């Protein structure tokens, strides 16, 4: 076991976990002819939520309107089912290993409010950026990477470049 000890007690070997996720991806290719992904579902959920609260704004949005157009069922897509499975899988894994706990995980030198503020800002940035990339780490980087897509490899390299460039500014959050 590598460094994992302090962070998550019995963690899988990264190579084993990677093989597992890779096999899951191959299953998705073989069974459904598509890749695994998450932001497809979160985008549909965000569009539906806004449509429920602010129907006019959403229907007039050139980007979001297509998700909520009459006759479409944004929350009935394949990716939503896959997301439900993801929730169940993670829940079962956490239950089995005793990691099911209400908590805010943070570095030793940061308080809860500051950690949550940074988590929120990071989330906004990630949600925004994922639209430009047409996907996230799973749907774009992993699936596209396996398909040898040039765009996916560029995306992945840029994700790490962006992360390393930002790390210094938020070191108090983690170290």
């Amino acid at each position: 076991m590598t460094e994992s000890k302090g962070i998550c007690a019995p963690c899988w070997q990264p190579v084993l976990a990677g093989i597992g996720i890779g096999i899951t991806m191959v299953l998705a290719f073989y069974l459904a002819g598509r890749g695994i992904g998450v932001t497809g579902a979160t985008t549909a959920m965000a569009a539906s939520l806004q449509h429920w609260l602010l129907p006019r704004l959403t229907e007039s949005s050139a980007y979001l309107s297509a998700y909520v157009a009459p006759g479409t069922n944004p929350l009935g897509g394949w990716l939503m089912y896959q997301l439900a499975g993801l929730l169940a899988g993670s829940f079962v894994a956490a239950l089995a290993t005793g990691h099911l706990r209400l908590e805010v995980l943070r570095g030793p030198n940061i308080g809860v409010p500051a950690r949550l503020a940074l988590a929120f800002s990071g989330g906004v940035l990630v949600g925004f950026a994922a639209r430009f990339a047409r996907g996230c780490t799973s749907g774009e980087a992993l699936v596209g990477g396996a398909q040898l897509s040039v765009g996916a490899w560029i995306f992945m390299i840029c994700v790490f470049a962006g992360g390393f460039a930002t790390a210094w500014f938020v070191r108090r959050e983690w170290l």
Partner: protein
Amino acid sequence: MMGPLAKTGEIPQTLDLWLAVFPIGFLFGYFVQRSGFTDARKIAAVFYLKDVDVPVVMLTAIVVGMLGLFGLSLLGLLDFSRVYLLPTYLGPMAVGGLLFGAGMAMGGFCPGTSVAAVVTGKLDALVFLIGVFLGTLVFGDFYPLWKDFYLSGYQGVYRLTDLLHLGLAPTMLLVILFTVGVSMGLRRLQQHFWHNVERKPSPRGRALTAAALASAAVAAFLIPTQAFFAVENTAGSMGGWTMPWADPFEKVMLDPLAAGEVVYRHSDRTRCFDLRSPSEFEQGHLRDARNMTASELAEKTFLPGTVVLAYAQNDDPSLRSTVKALRQRGVRAFGVEGGFQALKPYYMEPITGPLEKSLGGERVAALRSYRALMAPTQPAAAPQPDPPAGRQAP
């Protein structure tokens, strides 16, 4: 059974959705949690080289996914042309990646890991996920501000094989070598800066890795994969024929072969529309084409990224204006030059000798793979399985 099972008709749609829950989604969530990625600290640690599991897991998954995807296709178990392939948008994906990485370092999650973490009770993940929703809505509601950039740099399905001008197998070998090299190098850096790597590579593990790499290298030169992709995306041109996606807005009307190329490259997001009369439509049309009038098509809404291919009987002026109207709304629409009459010899009838001669070998090979997607499926034996709805039209 020939995959993808949901698209070759081996399994019904309901089963397809249930399989998305289990095993696909379930295993994905299970492995994400078991990698420790529901803990933001573990993900963020990679950016300090304190724990480099994230890229090791990702790269390993990519290698396994790649070997599975292309391996199953080469074995004839998977119809590669029916797998949805991700298109490339160079600039947006680079800039999106940089911002995404910055957000990951701040938040400690990516969308998938945050969803997996929420359900295990991590409140920071919940706050992150709310942020993801907001970021998505900001993008969508202010879309006109960055629409031009969002649609720029489009390259279609652009593979490393095209970029490197290498065959499939050598490219896969390079990806494997990259994965092993980067994983070992990062682990070494982790040990160098933090002295926290407890598991040293064993001589046996090293020998196994070396043996696996050596056999991969041998396989790369033995497997004949040069002809795997029907057409290579060689920087936008093939034998003087400019590919339409070099600049997606350059050409409005495509010749029949280019139309096939568009469908082939975007098989999952192309919608095909037949603008002829219902009776003409009934007598034969491209596979999966929908019959509607030009004005109906001009008003239709599409998901972003959808590619629209429309044809009339011949060169109908209303087709050109419909395509242009769609483009003004940002839909990537194309018309077919010469209409159905021009498509007919390419996709509706057996390929004739003169056509083969005029195209030449390479393009005939390409045409055959386009036909697999465009030619109407042969009706089983006697009764036409089409729904009766289209028949009662005048």
